[in-house]
C-alpha cells in the first residue's frame, strides 16, 4: 500500500501518485517538464537526486507539485535539493518526498521543506497515521520550515506546535 501523508493526515485520492495517473495530471521528468512547460495541462515534476533543481527556476511558477525522489533511504541529496527549492528558489508549492521514505527521515524532511510524503513502508504509515513523529523540536540550525528564533544564539530554532 502506498499513501500520501501530510501534516494534516493521510490524503485521500491524491492525483499525483506515481504510475497511478492514466487520466490525471502528470509528473514529468526534469527534461520533459522543461520541454512541456508551455502546455496548458497542469503538470508536476519529479526530480532524481542527480538533477539540478535550479534548472527548474524558469518554470517553477507553472509547476503544480515538485516530487524529489529518494532511490535509497540513505541517499541524502534530496535534503539539499529541498533546501534549495525552498530557500533559494522561493518555491512555495507542494514538495513531496517519494521513494524510500522512512519514519526517521520524515522529521528531517519536514525541516528541509518537504510537506508531503509518498510512503509505502507499513510501520512508517502506522506511526504517521497516529501523528507520532520521532523528531526533536529543538534545533541548532535555521531551516526551511516554520520555527521560532530567539533561543539564546542566532543559529538556534524551536519548532512551532502547529508549524
Amino acid at each position, binding site marked *: 500500500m502506498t499513501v500520501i501523508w501530510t501534516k494534516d493526515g493521510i490524503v485521500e485520492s491524491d492525483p499525483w501518485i506515481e504510475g497511478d495517473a492514466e487520466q490525471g495530471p502528470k509528473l514529468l521528468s526534469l527534461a520533459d517538464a522543461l520541454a512541456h512547460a508551455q502546455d496548458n495541462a497542469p503538470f508536476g515534476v519529479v526530480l532524481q*537526486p542527480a538533477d539540478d533543481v535550479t534548472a527548474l527556476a524558469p518554470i517553477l511558477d507553472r509547476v503544480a507539485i515538485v516530487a524529489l525522489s529518494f532511490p535509497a*533511504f*540513505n*541517499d*541524502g*541529496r534530496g*535534503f*539539499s*535539493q529541498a*533546501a*534549495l527549492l525552498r530557500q*533559494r528558489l522561493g518555491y512555495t508549492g507542494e514538495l513531496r518526498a517519494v521513494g524510500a521514505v*522512512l*519514519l*526517521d*527521515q520524515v*522529521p*528531517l*524532511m519536514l*525541516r*528541509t521543506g518537504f510537506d508531503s510524503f509518498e510512503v509505502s513502508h507499513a*510501520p512508517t504509515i502506522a506511526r504517521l497515521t497516529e501523528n507520532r513523529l*520521532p*523528531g*526533536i*523540536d*529543538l*534545533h*541548532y*540550525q*535555521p*531551516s526551511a520550515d516554520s520555527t521560532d528564533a530567539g*533561543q*539564546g*544564539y*542566532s*543559529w*538556534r530554532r524551536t519548532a512551532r506546535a502547529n508549524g
Partner: protein
Amino acid sequence: MYRYDEFDHGFVAQRVSQFRDQVARRLTGEISEDAFKPLRLMNGVYLQLHAYMLRVAIPYGTLNSRQMRKLAHIARTYDRGYGHFTTRQNIQYNWPALSDMPAILEELAEVEMHAIQTSGNCIRNVTADHFAGAAADEVADPRPYAEILRQWSSVHPEFSFLPRKFKIAVTASERDRAAIQVHDIGLQLKKDGEGGLGFAVWIAGGQGRTPILAKKIKDFLPEEDLLSYTTAIMRVYNLHGRRDNKYKARIKILVHETGVEQLTSEIDAEWAHLKDGELKLPAADIAAINAYFAPRELDARAEGWKELAAWKKSDPGFATWVGRNVAPHRHPDYGMVTISLKPIGGIPGDASADQMDAVAKLALEFGHDEIRVTHEQNLVLPHVALADLEPLYRALLAEGLATANAGLITDIIACPGLDYCALANARSIPVAQEISNRFGDPARQAEIGDLKIKISGCINACGHHHVGHIGILGVEKKGAELYQISLGGSGDENASIGQITGPGFEPDQVTDAIETIVETYLSQRTDADETFIACYRRIGADPFKAALYGSESQAA
C-alpha cells in the same frame, strides 16, 4: 569550558528519547537492521566483532573532573572496567549491552555529554588542539568555534545522510597539533592585518585507503562567516560527492576528481547566496560562546621554579618526566602536563576506571578542573603550576600514569584492530605492545628522541599510519596477517603521507624491522638534534630500504 543551557539539556534529553524509541522499534522489527544501522551509528553505537561498542563524544577533547568520573562510572558499571580513548578525542566502550545504551546515554546527559554523531555518514565530533587555551603560541582559543560548529552540526536536517563521514578539526597556531591537513575541513584560526579573527580553510584531506593532504581554499575567512561557508562546503559535497562507491565517497575524492579550482568556485558560488543570510554569526553570539572559554585566572606561583630545579636534581625519574611530558604554558609559572596512556607494553589509549577516577581527582586538585584528550590517545592536564608538578607526579606514578614517553617511540598510536574491530584485517594492539616492550628502556628511548609510530589494523587508517614517521598497516594476505611499513609521514603543519618501504612483514618480524629502521636512523643522523623525520627527509627512503631488504632491492 562550555556549559549546557536549558536548550542544550532539552535537546540531549529529546535525543535520548528518540534513540530509545528507535531501539524499541528495531527490537519489534519495525525498522530493518539495514535502516537501523545509520540511526544507531549516528548515536555512536557500532556492532563489533564480539559485542556492541559505544563511542562517546568528548567535544574538542575537553572535559572536567565530574565528566571524567562519569566515564569511569560507566566503564565500571556497564563495561569491563576500562575505556579506550581514541584518535578523535573520544572514548569507546567495547562491551556494553545494547539494552543498556539508553541508560548510559541518560547517565551521560547528567554530565552534559552524549554520543551524538560519533559515527555515521554525518558531521562527526569536532576536534581541536588539545593544548587550546593554554598554549603560548595560539592566536586565540579555537574551542569556541569548535563549540559553535558542534551545535550547528548536531542533527543537521540537510547533512545527516552525507555520502560518507565528515570530520572537522580546528587549531589556532602555526604549530598544528590537531592534524588539520588530514581532515575533511581543517580550520586554522588566525588574525588578519587589522587584528580581526578568521580562519584559513583547508578542505579534502583524509587518510583511509586514499590518503590525500588537504588543500587550502581560503586564506582568511572572517569568523562571522564560519557557518555560512561551512554550509556551502557541505551542500556542494552533499549534492555532488560520489555515492556509487563508499571508498570513493569522501570529499577528498570529489576534490580530486573535480579539481580544487572548480570545486572552490562552486563552493564560493553557493556561499555568495548564504553569506549575508541567517547563518551569519552576530558578534554578540561569538562573544557569548567565547566567554565560556575565557582564559583561566592563574595565580602567580613563582616559587615553583626553584622547587622544580631542586626536585629534578634529586629525582632523575621526575626530571625525565618533566622533560618529556610537561610543555611550557602561556603563564610562565605553569606547565601543560601530558598523562601518557602508553605504559610500556600496554594498550595505547586504554584507561581503567580507577585511573580515570584518579585523573579526575588530580585535575581537581592540581589542574583547575580541566582535562583534555589528545588525538594521540593521551590525556592532558592543561593548567598545572610548576609548584604542583612533584606531588602530581607522585600521584600519577602510583596509578601507573607517569610514563615519561610523550612524543617518543613508545608513545604509539594504535587502532583497536582485529582484537575488537569488525573492519580490521590484522591485530594492532599486540604489535604496539611488542614494539613498546622492545624499546621500553628509558635511556634508549631518549637516545632515539622524537619518533611517532602509528599503527592501523586495516586500510581505513584509524591508527593514522599514513602520517606516522613510521607507519604500520596490517593487511590480510592469504589468510595471514602481514604488516606494511611506511616512512616519512607527518600530521603536523609540515604534513606528509608516508611512503611504503616495500614488501610487508610477518607479525613476528615487525619489531625487528622497526629496530632496523631505528638503527639506520641512528647511524645516519648528523647528530642527536636531527630527529628521525628530519633525517628521513634529508636522506630519503633508500638507506632504510637497503637495511630492511638488502641492497639489491634498491634496483627493483
